């Protein structure tokens, strides 16, 4: 009898905390150690079960697959917990009507918007922005591709730091979405990119999604 009552009491307590987690604004949960602890308790195993395949054991992501390095805070859409929750709910280019899919990296060369030479030049410009060794003349030409012919700055911002509203990554390093080497950058301009994240709205409960978002935002970084 005591065990049954104890179990019921625990269950009721969990239900109450769960409701509190859902009703409290995410930003406030981050500064409430009791609720945050509960969110992490729920969110961490979910991450290990559902997200680790793409995002890595330690949130390090995967450059070949275009999965952002969350361990180094390379958040495509910002690290506001509400935004992260939305990404988990509806995904990125997941096909869900509410998914994040405002922009796509176009295949600038394949579609004829840029030539292969333009692409090489703009890569040199990006190398220059990142403070890496680069070809000066090509970087100068690449600069005009970035700001004029290619209109790259429209999505990636004038300072090439990316725009969270569009989910465009920073191109200035040191952390890159698909890798910062010349070949990876060139391939992005040549073929375009089309990363995606599935929508979890029909897989996880709202509580689990909230907890997962809070875990991602609050997980300790190396």
């Amino acid at each position, binding site marked *: 009898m005591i065990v049954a009552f104890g179990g019921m009491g625990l269950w009721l307590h969990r239900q109450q905390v769960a409701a509190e987690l859902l009703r409290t604004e995410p930003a406030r949960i981050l500064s409430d150690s009791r609720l945050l602890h509960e969110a992490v308790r729920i969110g961490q195993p979910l991450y290990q079960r559902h997200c680790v395949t793409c995002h890595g054991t330690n949130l390090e992501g995967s450059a070949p697959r275009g999965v952002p390095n969350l361990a180094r805070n390379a958040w495509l859409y910002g690290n506001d917990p509400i935004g992260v929750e939305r990404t988990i709910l509806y995904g990125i280019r997941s096909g869900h009507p509410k998914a994040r899919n405002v922009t796509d990296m176009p295949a600038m060369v394949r579609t004829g918007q840029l030539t292969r030479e333009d692409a090489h030049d703009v890569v040199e410009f990006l190398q220059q922005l990142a403070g890496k060794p680069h070809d000066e003349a090509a970087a100068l030409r690449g600069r005009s591709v970035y700001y004029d012919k290619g209109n790259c700055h429209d999505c990636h911002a004038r300072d090439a730091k990316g725009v969270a509203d569009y989910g465009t990554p920073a191109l200035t390093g040191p952390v890159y979405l698909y890798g910062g080497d010349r070949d990876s950058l060139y391939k992005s301009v040549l073929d375009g990119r089309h990363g995606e994240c599935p929508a979890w709205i029909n897989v996880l409960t709202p509580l689990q999604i*909230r907890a997962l978002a809070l875990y991602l935002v609050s997980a300790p970084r190396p």
Partner: protein
Amino acid sequence: MSIREDLSRVSVRRSMILLASGALIGLAIAGYGLFTSKGSRSRGVPPEAVALVNQRLILRSDFMTQTQSEFSVPFAQATAEQRRKVLGDMINEELLMQRGLEMDLPSYDPEVRNALVAGVELEVTADVLAQKPTPEHLRAYYEQHKDKYSSEGTMRLRDLLVKTDGSVEARRELALQAVTALRKGESVDAVMKRFGLADSGRFMEAGHVNTDNIFQFAVRAKVSDALYNAILPLQGGQVSDPIVESDGVHLVVMVDRTLPVPQTFEEASDRVWKDVTNEALDKVRAANLAYLRSRAEIVVAPDNAAVPGETP
């Protein structure tokens, strides 16, 4: 007699009154539930929702995102007035959407109908659209369909028809003579005049016979299989044998031709990608429609079916 004794005494009248009262209360509750939209409502709003509109949730997450994007402020900094406005708008939208369903809007409004159809298609094809074919898959597809990938060839041709009366045999004979004359180098105009030939009218441009280069696919679209098969091997300056079609006897003069040039995988990669995706989309769409048909009851009036007894 005390009240206690009275209550313990069996009373048929009291039992009947209690039974009737219970039945009436039950009926009233059931009637309220059956005949009002609020009958089966749940009283509380689930924690994940910010409101319930006729039992449909408005998610907190959607509400917070909407507030942030509408006022460009972090949700925590949104004023009560801003939150009230966003929630009010979301409730209104939900009400209008529900009213649209009540009115069965998709069944008669073409725009809503199209949007709904497009939405369902998108749902069905979402996985395919989100998938990225691997380079190995693309290359394998290219190797299997190499014939498809070439630059578009062009043809400049005259499709001539024997105009004279007479049997098919007689017209075929005349066409053979015309072919011989053309192959000997006589001009097209002279042969047309001498043998009474006319342009078939299949390749017209603004009311005139098109004597410019025409894309090969356009030629293919305008002629029968038999005629196209006769045209395809012709090089510039060559003349086909006579071809008997339902509208008469044809002969084709290939004035000039640019042959399609096969594309390498790299050159064709965009088209290959598109074709692979389209093929996958077609498969998914077909499977979805097959599933929908399998569970639907479709009855077609026999007089309207293309093939009686067969569902289109």
